[in-house]
């Protein structure tokens, strides 16, 4: 008890020095907690966004050529075929629906506005598989397919780009292939959905599959992507395996295609964010170590300055152990108080970050383990970096310490 009081007194004597030596630990603790909080928040955000896709959706895309020796990886087009769609339909028992997609970027023109848009040729069931809700007008239907109708459903963002505040439904846009233009009548507008795995419907113009195949995107039986849905979330992984097997039978090369399900993406994303969080936290932890070195420095100075005091205390009967504990208590006092201040301030900083970054969709979630970890580490730093100065203090010869001026 007296030791604590004495530590408090001697730290209180030079408040600026104590404050500065605390600062390193305070900043370190804040950095660790906030870094982990941002990591946790990002993970939660991304997870929520991916989950909004619906856990049954499976997307099959062409693979990439290996980016090697400075060559960029290039998507392998025309690998997937319409026959794959039929095979999956017939041979994958855990797949509920499967549908091909044709996809290509075109210049789309409305009056004076001209913008690059991803035009997607899709069958009507695509809307239900991907869960794309309508904002106004209607979705595409089988009649549109049967008649190769020049109609389109427009994504929310691109509708604003092309039409501004005008209602796009009923308007006609022109898709330019370079050599000719294809007119499309907008029959419906989608609600804003955000990205769905490899798709961003907000930036798409969706037209009937047959229209696309006949007039805009001729792949000779090839398809851009295949979208499937598993019968249930539980069988999604089985469905992925079945699709993989079916594609492997024909292509004999796993690099030629990719089968992506929400679960896989979730685990990839969480691995990625975990690594990022770890990286951020490690950098932050380094600042705690630097803070610890600062404390060690201050304690060494303090031990030297108080050499005479140490000598007097030894003469009065303080044991070496007692002297050691006195200095150790001081350094730990610094780090415990600094750790507590850091934990407190990190809530404040988290609130500020949340406020400033709310537009970026950045969420900050402070987790208990990060608090316990950073506080524990700061206490451990006080112990570790305080040990050597305290040891030096305790090893002083009473005679020499008393002679010190």
């Amino acid at each position: 008890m007296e030791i604590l009081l004495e530590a408090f007194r001697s730290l209180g004597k030079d408040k600026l020095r104590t404050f500065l030596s605390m600062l390193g630990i305070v900043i370190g603790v804040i950095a660790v907690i906030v870094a982990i909080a941002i990591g946790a928040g990002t993970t939660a955000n991304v997870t929520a966004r991916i989950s909004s896709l619906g856990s049954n959706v499976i997307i099959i895309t062409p693979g990439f050529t290996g980016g090697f020796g400075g060559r960029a990886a290039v998507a392998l087009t025309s690998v997937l075929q319409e026959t794959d769609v039929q095979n999956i339909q017939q041979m994958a028992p855990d797949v509920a629906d499967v549908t091909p997609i044709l996809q290509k970027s075109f210049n789309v023109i409305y009056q004076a506005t001209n913008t690059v848009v991803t035009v997607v040729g899709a069958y009507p069931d695509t809307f239900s598989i991907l869960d794309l809700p309508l904002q106004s007008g209607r979705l595409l239907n089988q009649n549109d397919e049967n008649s190769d109708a020049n109609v389109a459903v427009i994504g929310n963002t691109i509708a604003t780009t092309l039409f501004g505040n005008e209602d796009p439904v009923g308007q006609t846009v022109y898709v330019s292939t370079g050599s000719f233009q294809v007119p499309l009548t907008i029959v419906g507008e989608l609600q804003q959905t955000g990205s769905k795995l490899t798709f961003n419907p907000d930036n798409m113009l969706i037209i009937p599959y047959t229209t696309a195949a006949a007039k805009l995107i001729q792949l000779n039986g090839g398809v851009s992507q295949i979208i499937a849905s598993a019968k249930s979330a539980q069988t999604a992984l089985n469905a992925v395996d079945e699709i993989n097997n079916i594609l492997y039978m024909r292509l004999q090369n796993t690099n030629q295609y990719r089968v992506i399900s929400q679960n896989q993406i979730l685990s990839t994303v969480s691995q990625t964010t975990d690594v990022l969080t770890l990286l951020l936290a490690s950098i932050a932890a380094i600042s705690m170590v630097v803070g610890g070195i600062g404390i060690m420095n201050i304690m060494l100075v303090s031990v030297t300055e108080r050499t005479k005091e140490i000598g007097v205390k030894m003469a009065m009967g303080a044991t070496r152990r007692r002297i050691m504990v006195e200095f150790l208590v001081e350094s730990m006092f610094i780090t415990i108080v600094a750790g507590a201040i850091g934990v407190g301030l990190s809530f404040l900083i988290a609130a500020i970050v949340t406020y400033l970054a709310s537009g970026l969709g950045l969420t900050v979630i402070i987790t208990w383990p990060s608090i316990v970890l950073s506080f524990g580490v700061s206490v451990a730093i006080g112990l570790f970096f305080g040990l050597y100065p305290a040891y030096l203090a305790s090893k002083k010869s009473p005679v020499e310490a008393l002679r010190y001026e």
Partner: protein
Amino acid sequence: MAALLELKNVKKIYDMGRDIQVEALKGVSFSIEEGSYTAIMGHSGSGKSTLLQIMGCLDRATSGDIIIKGTAVKDMNDFQLAKFRNKTIGFVFQSFNLIGNLTAIENVELPMIYAGVPRAERRKRAMELLKLVGLEEPEERAFHRPNQLSGGQQQRVAIARALANDPAVILADEPTGNLATNQWRRILDIFKRLNESGKTIIIVTHDPLVGQEATRIITLEDGAIIKDERIR
């Protein structure tokens, strides 16, 4: 009278490195009786400070025996020596050496903290001791920091601290060296009073006027005793 402290052929050699050795004490023997008042005198460099450190168990002799209250000092380890100093020896220094962070009364309590005396008891005893050494307005001054006290007041607080655990002997190293003459007298009066009430006192000094206060003067020169006289 029984011997409280006994030195037998004590030598102290300082190794200065490069094979240079300084023999500060060249085989000193004497004994101090309980309740006596001894002055150890000598010029600077005579070895009197070294002798005080060795008698005070702050330093170890290179050879020879020191026996205090029947205990051989050289058989004790650092921990035992610290405990021994705490209980048996009260130091008074030339420059007072009060701890600056602590109030006067806390300074007096310090040796009692090391001895494990309960808080209430040591506060009570510390206050009694401050009154004993004649600190003016003790109820108020007790809670002043050393830098708020005069030199004479600080030295009285230091004497109270030395008395805290009722030690067998008070070792004072030039206790008046940093004091003005009027304070000087008061400090010596305290030592005299303490001695009259039975406390064993050893004062190390180069000042003959201080030496005259004692009943015995041991004079050192060049690490050896050249004179040992009882003057009262």
